[in-house]
């Protein structure tokens, strides 16, 4: 599989602030790639470098096989972009803006345009100022999804302001883009259910660096599973379980045991539990929220505490 985007060791600073500090990002062709990180982590800066709006200080960058800065115009024929905060011209109608964006890229599929306007319930005759935030997002989304010859969609928090129904519509079109139209999607988002639902792989960045990258299953593996069991025999103190590697936050209350365990050490814990006779057992894989909190927290200890909650 070829890569739609490769970024390695990307640095970008503004005056004294180091916005990107050696960031890496790999997006395979045809996948939906989640791009996550706390506010100010450098997501939008990365995207603006990829779009040739900002010039990288250093680092290797390829976008659809070209250089995002020097080949910007050629590349942009094949790229559609939706920013998180769409600003429109006050005296142009939404329909005019959609058509303008379309023509500035490789053209617009008029049938899809009509369908998208209907599905997103957008009134294209209203003028810039009169749209709400959600409706301004829709204008950019319609233009991006209706673009005729686009290989890559770069979406920077595209659903901010959309209602849950429209969120559904959005997800349907992202899925269609990836599965039926063969487009690659880079999706920056804070809506974790959206990421969980749509993304094949994710990259998590913090303070301008990539801290984690891989499929959601891979990432889950790196964190802890919560285990809650009721045993036939009261466990023999905390010694047996507490001595196992990878066990955290163990608490024993009569026959009940609660603990967190590193997911790759789960097997040994279960063996130990079944030895005491399991009456009931719930095991919860880490949610994406926990995964996030772990990475978003400032340091490792508070991250563990967050997972333990």
């Amino acid at each position, binding site marked *: 599989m070829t890569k739609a985007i490769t970024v390695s060791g990307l640095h970008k600073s503004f005056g004294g602030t180091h916005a990107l500090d050696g960031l890496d990002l790999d997006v395979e062709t045809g996948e939906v790639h989640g791009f996550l990180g706390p506010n100010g982590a450098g997501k939008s800066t990365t995207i603006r470098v990829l779009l040739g709006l*900002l*010039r990288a200080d250093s680092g290797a960058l390829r976008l659809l096989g070209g250089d995002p800065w020097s080949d910007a115009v050629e590349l942009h024929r094949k790229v559609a*972009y939706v920013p998180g905060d769409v600003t429109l011209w006050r005296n*142009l109608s939404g329909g*005019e803006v*959609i*058509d303008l964006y379309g023509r*500035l890229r490789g053209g617009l599929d008029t049938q899809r345009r009509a369908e998208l306007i209907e599905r997103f319930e957008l009134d294209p*005759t*209203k003028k810039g100022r009169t749209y709400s935030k959600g409706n301004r997002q829709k204008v950019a989304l319609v233009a991006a999804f209706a673009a005729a010859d686009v290989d890559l969609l770069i979406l920077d928090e595209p659903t901010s302001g959309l209602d849950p129904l429209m969120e559904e519509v959005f997800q349907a079109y992202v899925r269609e883009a990836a599965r039926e139209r063969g487009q690659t999607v880079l999706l920056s988002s804070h809506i974790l259910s959206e990421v969980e639902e749509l993304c094949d792989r994710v990259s998590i960045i913090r303070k301008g660096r990539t801290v984690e990258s891989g499929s959601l299953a891979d990432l889950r593996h790196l964190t802890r599973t919560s285990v809650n069991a009721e045993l036939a025999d009261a466990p023999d103190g905390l010694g047996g379980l507490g001595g196992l590697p990878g066990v955290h936050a163990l608490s024993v209350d009569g026959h009940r045991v609660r603990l967190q365990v590193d997911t790759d050490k789960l097997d040994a814990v279960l063996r130990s539990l079944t030895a005491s006779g399991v009456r009931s057992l719930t095991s919860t894989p880490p949610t994406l929220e926990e995964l996030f909190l772990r990475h978003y927290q400032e340091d490792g200890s508070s991250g563990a505490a967050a997972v333990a909650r």
Partner: protein
Amino acid sequence: MTTLAGTGPLVRFALRRDRLMIPLWISLVALTLITSPRTLKGIYSTPADRADLLATMRTNSSLRALYGPALSDSLGGLAVWRVGAWGALFAGAMSLLIVVRHTRDEEESGRQEMVSAAMVGRRAPLTAALLTALVANATVALLIAAGMTVTAGDGFAGALALGLATGGTGMVFATLAAIVAQFTESARLARGVSAGLLGAAFVLRAAGDAGTADASSPLTWASPIGWLENVRAYAGERWWVLLLFVAAVAAQGAVAYALTGRRDVGMSFLPSRPGPAAGRLGSAGALAWRLQRGAVIGWSLSFLASGAALGGVTAGATDLVGDNQATRRMIERMGGQSGLTDAFLSAMVGLLGMVAALYVVQSVLRMHGEETSGRAEPVLTGAVGRVRWASGHLVIAFAGAVLIMLLGGLGLAAGYGHGLGPILGACLVQLPAIWTLGGLAVLLYGATPRAAMAAWGVAGAVLLLGWLGPALKVPQSVMDLSPFGHLPKLPGGGMAWSPVVLLTVVAVGCVGAGVAGVRRRDTAG
């Protein structure tokens, strides 16, 4: 009074936000007036000179149209004649900018919603904007009253009358802008319309003064700037005329208040109509034209009209000047070379050129507005190179200057009645200087986008220098800083190619360097 809740903090906030802008404007208005007596003393040093001048102004309607009537031969009176109307014009501009900035601008950007959601009454933002304007205008009035007392040395009464009339004119346009801003949804349009009304007040005064020597024409009385003349500072002050300012401010303020109580935040009385569901715009250039065409049409019409008006007074310019050397010299320093009519026409063409530079700067800086508002970003992420994007705006700016200068020349020739060819030629000769100022704006925007707005300052300084410099005996070395100072004086003078070519080269170089900056630097957003 709950509709006024929060006014106090809003005024402090406005003054804090404008801590640079308001003092700069106040200095401009006050210093224009306060510094003039000293220079005028140098030019009209003897009683004979002054009597001469008064005689000229009584008889020459064209010069009256440009500068206003001379009502007294005291130093203060000369200052009122020479720069009084300009002080009023600046005070008006300052006031309308303050009010639009703190009312419609806030609503358009959505910031007003945050503020209004706090403990802030419905009428508090308008009140705060008007009070901020009042603070600025009161400061102007005090500075002029104190400063002119010192520099003119003709007593306190005249200085006070001039200060109050200048501040009063400012407040008339503050309250007028408060009304205009409620009829438009965009701050840009509110500023444009208010500035147009200010310009109209200046033109009304000019038309009235062309007809009468003592500012008694009904046209003059119809203009707040004419009221300033009729206060007759230093010429037997008529204090009751100041009541006109009070009445106008009260009436317009009442209308603005009534309107603001009936309006939704962010909405205007002229709501936007629906647009087409599909559009024909297909390129960055077409978009640039769509965004700027309103301004181009507005500038074109006003250049045609101003040209015609200036042409209309040209015929009277040479009447009865006779042997008056002072007047002749003044017209010549304004830009004329030989033959008073030609000299006058040449001065008018130069004036049009300096104002056209404001158009070019405004048009070039539209790019800056597009970029900082984030609207350039989706265009640049299309298959549009930065140079293509910029060139759309640049063509409109630089070719637009050609258009409006030709229209201004057409109006001038039509108003004057003959000389179309030479006048159009003279208008075209202004272009290299206009382009140089536009090129400077491109350079500032491209290389140092944070300082782009400084282009306004440069264009404004050049205009001020060109207009007031000749009568204020500004040293030639300073006059030479203006690109317009180097152009051949046409019609009438001999054509000189070298400054024209040289300035064109400078302009092209600035544009090239600026565009190179746009290509190389990060895009703001």
